[in-house]
């Protein structure tokens, strides 16, 4: 009513200005509308999710309840903008959104301002926002069930429990032992259910715009899940990998383009701090001291018991992973790989649904008959004075080259080493893989073997020299290759027989231990 009154003289004036200005008559009217118009974009039309792995965790699998990686989410949205100033509110963004990373493109005008508001509606903020206002105090008589409602004014903030002013006097909420609660007439202004993200922009004229909202969000992770199946002859293996992606966010991305980035992009800011929801003030209903004659203070409003520990969820993935039929499985969708600067980008070729609290696996690597060598690895400890015998680690080594059946980037992840055995398969090792570039050698630790042991005997431990005898014992029925690292000892020269070679920047004893036999080597560290 009021606005019509205000515009009436203006319209009258414009009419009087006659025909010439008629076409433009709308413009000043529109511009006179006060303040920016709020435009809500409820949901994206389409989205793309690029997942980055958690750099801080070890290689191998991740825990579904503790996803510390992140994702770059890119959403296409359509908004209708009025002429002039507008605030575009984006709803349905991921809860782990890092607002400072958000970029909005495609708007006709520039974005002057981006805001994320996190004053959330909660029991405490409801009370806080009602300070000094009228609320209703509702009591239920425990015997008769009669409900009494009294008007009251909130006199204290939520930090110190609630003091109310009623027609009868000053009272404290929930100190009497009667069932009582506050009833509010309305929600205080500026409180929202979820943190909201909005931008301030300006458009010359009313228009429909397709905008892209891009932001980082936490609560994702991914890794490669390799299955290496050793052939029955023990000389080659089939290497398969799943691209395993998990979304621990509340947001759901249906029909999304899914990508994953391998490599180690830098992360310098504290994502958790950037995401952290504003601490919604705790509603603290404490009372005056309530000690009774016989007892210690009873906590009138006990804290709810802590939630039960999360159920182990990783089991699902493993079942899926190991239950795969190893022989010539076909995959309709295999992720493709491309270079992204110095990182590797994997693209799932079909649109997929990335659902909240869900894990998804798509085939990414499939290589057959990759030759490998198996050996046992150990290290000499030249510093300790006590002698000892240690079991050796079983290792598989592949060469990441085309002619060796590989020759592709291998992103880090978990490795299940399987061995064909008649009809079935046997798990040999549950191991990990680091990022391996083309041309690098790939070593997979496949457990500790008790069948091969390295025994060190000190022959001389003087100030001038440290002399050792190394004996490798093989309890298996086959000849075994072993590689024993001989570390450098500062201030000493190493005198070792011909069996010790330079390898990977250090000295290594390359031994071949006969079946059910031993091999030995003497070496001396002499002070320089």
């Amino acid at each position, binding site marked *: 009513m009021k606005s019509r009154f205000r515009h009436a003289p203006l319209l009258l004036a414009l009419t009087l200005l006659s025909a010439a200005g008629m076409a433009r008559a709308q413009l000043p009217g529109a511009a006179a509308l006060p303040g920016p118009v709020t435009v809500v974009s409820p949901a994206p039309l389409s989205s793309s999710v690029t997942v980055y792995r958690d750099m801080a965790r070890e290689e191998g699998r991740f825990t579904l309840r503790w996803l510390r990686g992140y994702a770059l989410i*890119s959403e296409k949205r359509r908004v209708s903008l009025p002429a002039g100033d507008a605030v575009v509110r984006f709803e349905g963004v991921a809860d782990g959104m890092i*607002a*400072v990373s958000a*970029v909005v493109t495609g708007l006709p005008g520039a974005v002057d*301002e*981006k*805001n*994320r508001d996190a*004053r959330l509606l909660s029991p405490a903020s409801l009370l806080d926002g009602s*300070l*000094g*206002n*009228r609320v209703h105090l509702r009591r239920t*008589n*425990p015997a*008769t069930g009669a409900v*009494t409602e009294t*008007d009251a004014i909130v*006199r*204290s*903030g939520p*930090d110190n*429990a609630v*003091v109310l002013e*009623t*027609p009868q006097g000053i*009272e*404290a909420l929930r100190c*009497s032992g009667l069932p009582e609660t506050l009833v509010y007439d309305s929600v*205080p202004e*500026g409180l929202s259910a979820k943190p909201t993200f909005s931008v301030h922009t300006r458009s010359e004229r009313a228009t429909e715009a397709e905008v892209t909202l891009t932001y980082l969000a936490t609560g994702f992770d991914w890794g490669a899940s390799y299955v290496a199946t050793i052939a029955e002859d023990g000389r080659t293996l089939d290497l398969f990998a799943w691209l395993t992606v998990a979304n621990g966010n509340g947001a759901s991305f249906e029909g999304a383009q899914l990508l994953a*980035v391998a490599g*180690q*992009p*830098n*992360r*310098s*800011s504290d994502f958790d701090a950037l995401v952290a929801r*504003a601490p919604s003030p705790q509603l603290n209903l*404490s009372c005056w*001291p*309530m*000690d009774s*004659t016989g007892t210690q*203070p009873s906590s009138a409003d006990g804290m709810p018991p802590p939630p039960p520990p999360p159920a182990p969820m990783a089991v699902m993935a493993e079942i899926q992973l190991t239950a795969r039929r190893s022989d010539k499985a076909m995959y309709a969708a295999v992720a493709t790989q491309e270079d992204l*600067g*110095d*990182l590797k*980008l994997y*693209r799932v070729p079909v649109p997929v649904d990335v659902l909240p609290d869900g894990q998804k696996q798509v085939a990414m690597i499939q290589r057959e008959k990759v030759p490998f060598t198996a050996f046992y690895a150990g290290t000499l400890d030249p510093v300790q004075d006590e002698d000892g015998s240690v079991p050796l680690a079983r290792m598989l080594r592949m060469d990441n080259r085309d002619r060796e059946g590989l020759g592709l*980037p291998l992103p880090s992840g978990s490795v299940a080493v399987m061995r064909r055995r008649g009809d079935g398969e046997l798990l040999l090792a549950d191991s990990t893989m680091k*990022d391996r*570039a*083309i*041309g*690098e050698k790939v070593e997979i630790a496949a457990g500790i073997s008790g069948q091969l042991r390295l025994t060190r005997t000190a022959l001389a431990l003087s100030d001038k020299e440290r002399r050792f005898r190394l004996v490798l014992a093989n309890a298996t029925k086959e000849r075994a290759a072993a590689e024993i690292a001989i570390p*450098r000892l*500062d201030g000493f020269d190493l005198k070792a027989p011909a069996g010790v070679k330079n390898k990977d*920047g250090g000295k290594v004893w390359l031994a071949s231990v006969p079946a059910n036999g031993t091999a030995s080597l003497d070496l001396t560290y002499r002070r*320089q």
Partner: protein
Amino acid sequence: MTVRFTMAGLQALAMMGTMAGAAMALPAQAQTGQTSAQGDLSVTIYNDDLALVQDVRQLNISSGVSRIEFPDVSAQIRPETLSFSAPGAAIVEQNFDYDLLSPDTLMEKAVGQVVTIVRTNPGSGAETREQAKVLAVNGGVVLQIGNRIEVLRDDGLPVRVIFDKVPPNLRARPTLSVRVDSDRAGTRPASIRYLTPGLGWSADYVALFDARAGKVDVQGWVTLTNTSGTTYTNANTLLVAGSVNQRQATPYVRRPAPGMAVSPLRNPGTETAGREQLGDFYLYPIANRTTIASNQTKQVSFLDVQGVPASAGYEYVNGWLSTGTEAQSADSVVRFSTSARGGLGDALPAGTVRFYQKDASGAPQFTGENRLGHTPMGSQLALATGKAFDVKVQPVVEQRQKLGDSKWRTTMRYELTNARPDAVTVDLVQQGLDFAWSDTRIASESLKSERRNADAVVWHVPVPANGRASVTATFETRY
């Protein structure tokens, strides 16, 4: 059955309370929420979680000595920094009271006074009213009812306690007040100024890097965060880049610790940006008045530069003359300048730079981020964005000989591999050369090195496409 008491009686009671001088921080207001008592606000925000708030309010000050309260100041105000000025009014004292109203304090202040207790019979629901005198509040509440002594709710049965009034000096929120002596009565502008933590800002940069074209587009945003618990309505906002000394010892200039990545600032600039300066600080005013809501993160654009020349490079830092057990990825580095000529042409406030590169489909993808300190205009920057998947370096101690009591000779070999389809140049840095402040000499090397400083040398090593390269050097050290 619902019984409603009328509001009229309640309001009369509330008014009586106010007239009786029950000093409430906020008066009872209409149902629609609170209006802010803030006046003409100016907020100057520093980087290190500190802001200067100036608030000019129109206050009606009566003649003589009176007390003025200031609601709606920052909930985290540093009260000792408050300064007040109003024409014709002299300050007697400034007070910051934080004795807060709670059931606990209410009961404690009622010691020696008479309250009303209402018992509800759990069987019949009948209510009985009694007058009780609060004798003590120590762990529990001890009451005198007539000539009986009782502990409040000792039997666990429901008992309501009704107090007559809120004691003076108990407030809903910490309250700032001044007592002034005014030579006249009347409304006049009164300004208060104070410091508060909980307001801070930093910069966030979005850098879209095109490696093929050798260009980077940079957008700069200032990010304001408000966790001070208060909304600043319609404030004139000014951001100050630079840190004020907040009780820190004078920082002495330190060299980077061995093995730490080198600072992204390679060559500090000497140009002055065309922005307002105050002393050594650059000022970034926000064009229009803005409301900084409580718990809000606000970003305002301050820089948008397209097509700045930039180049990609690689850097590997070996912290000490040591062997790597396996090849490690080199850092991917993006280099550009902040100069007016061939650069961003601005002084950059400290913040986080996030790099994006386009994938095969043309969509920008995140490729890493890094922190930037306050950077003068004209500086050369080299920001590490992450580790290169395909470019790796393995340092190896080839030989180490003791030549004397404090003379060692170490031969290092560095193996560089490149799995990329194009040739790259790696800046290979050997640090830790002035270990324990002793001198180090390079006796021989396979490639000419460049001495970066006393602690580090750098080799610019070309590595062919899908190939490898090797550098050897012999160091003579004291240890």
